[in-house]
């Protein structure tokens, strides 16, 4: 039997598999088991399998790697079983034993080489689109060639911000995340501009990748390392009197909940109390009557999709609430479950088909709504929806920014 050190044993959540009454509600909602028999579904994979696992026995449940980590099963379980956590722990054990391919390391450590991507973005982006390269990547790394790897932008968001002079009456810190920094700089800019339009001076605390790609791949050690670097920096910001916002619901979910619940990072509880989803923060402004609502009319038909990690933040749909204030904006909430990308899940060759099959339901829901653009708070969902529909997909803050500030069409890119 492997011995878990006391510190770690305390950190990891205790299994409440006993609470499962086998009602199978989770089986009705799991996006993976609905499309493939390869994954036995949350009831079986989580609390069910838990009864069969013995400390010290090698993992036999290779299918556990197919849990996409959407947390939807947790959300619908009336008995409060922490199904996806049980799955993640089992997945970590399985991958620890089996070993992780180089591919997984590359997919989860983009923060280490993202700056290079930005620096050489013209070349890199050409390479990423080149079909011969994509073929090689598929053969060597098992990253599916049908998936377009995200392109890099230069300058990075942080570089842009250095030359930007943020001004305001109150200060707010921004955890922008890796993807905004090197791949979707525009989301970062829009966030800064919206906050400034509400009278905030924006600061950027020192930050590393939040670690969620590693956690999603069962690499607790790697994820914890990122958390241990981030938390002291974020605490410094908080203790200087500034709240923090995030624009990526995945980074936010990680920092706010998993740092504490799964990784037990010291100080994470205090961080959780002071870090907010961007739109949650704006909704609070609205509640206190201080939200800048001088919106100009925006005649646009948009569909909004709530990402899984937003749902597990359990703050409702604040982006929808705020965007509804914009005159002219026709907004429909897309009631679909999971986009199917699952962070790095959908890039993997062996999981691509599953990812696409899950995505089909979302695509159909979007097709029915016939929007001009799609809005969603998570970069993964944006990538996937672009891939599925070919539509223009933005972060809701980009539309909010446009409603607040004069922009020409070219700039809206």
């Amino acid at each position, binding site marked *: 039997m492997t011995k878990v050190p006391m510190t770690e044993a305390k950190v990891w959540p205790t299994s409440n598999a*006993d609470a499962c*009454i*086998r009602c199978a509600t989770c089986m009705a909602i799991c996006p993976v088991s609905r499309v493939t028999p390869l994954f036995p579904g949350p009831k*079986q994979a989580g609390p069910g399998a838990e*009864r*069969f696992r013995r400390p010290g026995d090698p993992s036999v449940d290779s*299918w556990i790697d197919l849990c996409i980590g959407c947390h939807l099963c947790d959300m619908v379980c009336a008995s409060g079983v922490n199904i996806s956590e049980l799955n993640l722990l089992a997945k970590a054990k399985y991958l620890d034993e089996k070993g992780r391919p180089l591919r997984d390391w590359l997919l989860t450590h983009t923060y280490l080489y993202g700056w290079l991507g930005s620096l050489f973005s013209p070349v890199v982006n050409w390479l990423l689109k080149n079909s011969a390269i994509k073929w090689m990547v598929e053969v060597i790394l098992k990253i599916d060639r049908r998936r377009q790897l995200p392109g890099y932008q230069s300058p990075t968001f942080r570089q842009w911000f250095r030359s930007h002079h943020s001004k305001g009456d109150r200060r707010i810190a921004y955890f922008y995340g890796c993807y905004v920094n090197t791949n979707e700089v525009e989301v970062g800019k829009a966030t800064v501009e919206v906050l400034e339009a509400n009278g905030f001076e924006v600061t950027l605390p020192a930050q590393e990748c939040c670690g969620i790609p590693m956690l999603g791949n069962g690499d607790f050690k790697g994820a914890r390392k990122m958390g241990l670097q981030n938390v002291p920096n974020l605490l410094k910001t908080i203790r200087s009197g500034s709240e923090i916002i995030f624009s990526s619901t995945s980074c936010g979910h990680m920092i706010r909940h998993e740092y504490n619940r799964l990784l037990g990072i010291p100080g994470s509880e205090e961080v959780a109390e002071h870090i907010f989803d961007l739109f949650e923060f704006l909704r609070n402004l609205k509640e206190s009557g201080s939200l800048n609502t001088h919106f100009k009319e925006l005649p646009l038909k948009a569909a909004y999709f709530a990402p899984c990690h937003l749902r597990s933040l359990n703050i409702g749909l604040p982006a929808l609430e705020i965007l509804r204030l914009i005159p002219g904006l026709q907004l429909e909430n897309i009631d679909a479950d999971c986009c199917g990308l699952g962070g790095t899940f959908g890039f993997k060759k062996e999981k691509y088909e599953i990812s696409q099959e899950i995505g089909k339901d979302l695509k159909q829901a979007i097709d029915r709504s016939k929007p001009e653009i799609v809005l969603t708070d998570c970069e993964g969902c944006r990538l996937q929806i672009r891939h599925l529909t070919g539509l223009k997909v933005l972060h809701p803050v980009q539309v909010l920014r446009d409603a607040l500030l004069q922009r020409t069409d070219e700039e809206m890119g």
Partner: protein
Amino acid sequence: MDIKTEVLIIGGGATGTGIARDLSLRAIPCVLVEKGDLASGASGRNHGLLHSGARYAVSDPEAARECISENRILRRIAGHCIEETGGLFISLSEDSPQFRERFLMACEEAGIPTALYSRDQALELEPELNPDLLSAVKVPDGAINPFELVRANAKDAERHGAKLLFHTGITSLLIDQNQVRGGLALDLLSGEDYKIEASFVVNATGAWVNQVLKLAGLRIDMALSKGSMLITNQRLNQRVINRCRPASDGDIVVPNETVSILGTTSVRSEEVEDFEVTPPEVSLLLTEASRMIPAIRGARLIRAYAGIRPLFQSGGTGGDRQISRSFALIDHGERDGLKNLMTITGGKLITYRLMAERTSDLICRKMGVDVSCSTHLKPLPVVAESLRPKDRLQKIAPGGEVLCDCELVRREELEEILETMQFRDIRDILHRTRLAKGTCQGGFCVYRLLGLLHESGLVKESPNKVLKAFLEERWKGIRPILWGGALKEEELIESIYKGIFNLKDSVEFGVGSSE
């Protein structure tokens, strides 16, 4: 269809099937009749402990020696029915240190190997143990699957020529001039009756011995002791955990496949089929077992059940815990003047083979045959591929239809079992698989099992009648533990069957089942 044979064995528990195997290995023809299914008495209603004998070392050295000797034999011949978990006798602060010393010495005298562990060593092996424990003594206890054991004996007996008849009762004994000559048998499912002529009759009916003896106007002194047990939803310990103190209620927790079994109580009973677990028994078991493993207090229970220990009283007084767990072989020719009738009772699951050996020896002596026993040398056959929890887990996806979600029993597995047996009653299947033994206790899968049986044309009566009888039987096991998670489960299951399916009115197994 009258039958002629050499030996008629009554009772299809471990002892009866053990005797059938022993005799047929000695090439003595025999027929076994059992009124229910295999192991439907105490053989199937115990905590599945492969005794090391340590429990009896202090109080009953003879029983202890029998246990450890049979323990070694069973490991050799029935490895596939056993999980070699090992066991610990733990001492808590309130347990006498003198007892531990006596215990260690007595084990040594009985030939039971022990090792003394410190508190920390014990906790490292079993992290759920009460951290207040003082020490633990390691003993060669294990877990045994009694159904597999009995089935293996039955299969080997059949392979060597024995005939086994289930759901068959003996309604009277054929007696001719102070000598038994067989019995009248009744097929309880079809209603057919016939004669079984035999030179010898062995009464191996455990707690039911006096019901058989009554047919001959005889009676022996038996004490019936009800032992109740509780099953947890998850396996909390990897080794058998015993309390290092004189035998008492709630002093053992046996790991078994996916669950742990808390045992036992000892309540004198007048009824052989008194299987009701009372609220005081439930609280007593929980209180005592959670002293050893505190997590038991908050753990989800999935079932309560009881078995009747047939204790043979050879005189003496004292509580049931003091009655010897040794067995008794009674030659009614010597005792009552009724020749060729024997009763074998008392004992324990672990000594079933020895009991069978002694009984068969006696028969051989009477027959004047000189063939010695070989059951301790020949391994028992594997009846069906038995899947360990790990294998079940591995096979679920994409391995086909899992009918029992809790114990991961696949359709394929059930179909294989149906091929190996002549299907007569749904309970026969429940005895042969892990189906319905998990969290929801058959709440979902028995409906599915009936669907499968109906598809195969195996259910002659209305499937809903069988379903209702099953739910009524299930109720007996869960009613004593209905609070917390088990109560939620109950609300779910009741809402399915009485709500969605609108099933009504009580039906019991066996009642009117020949319709």
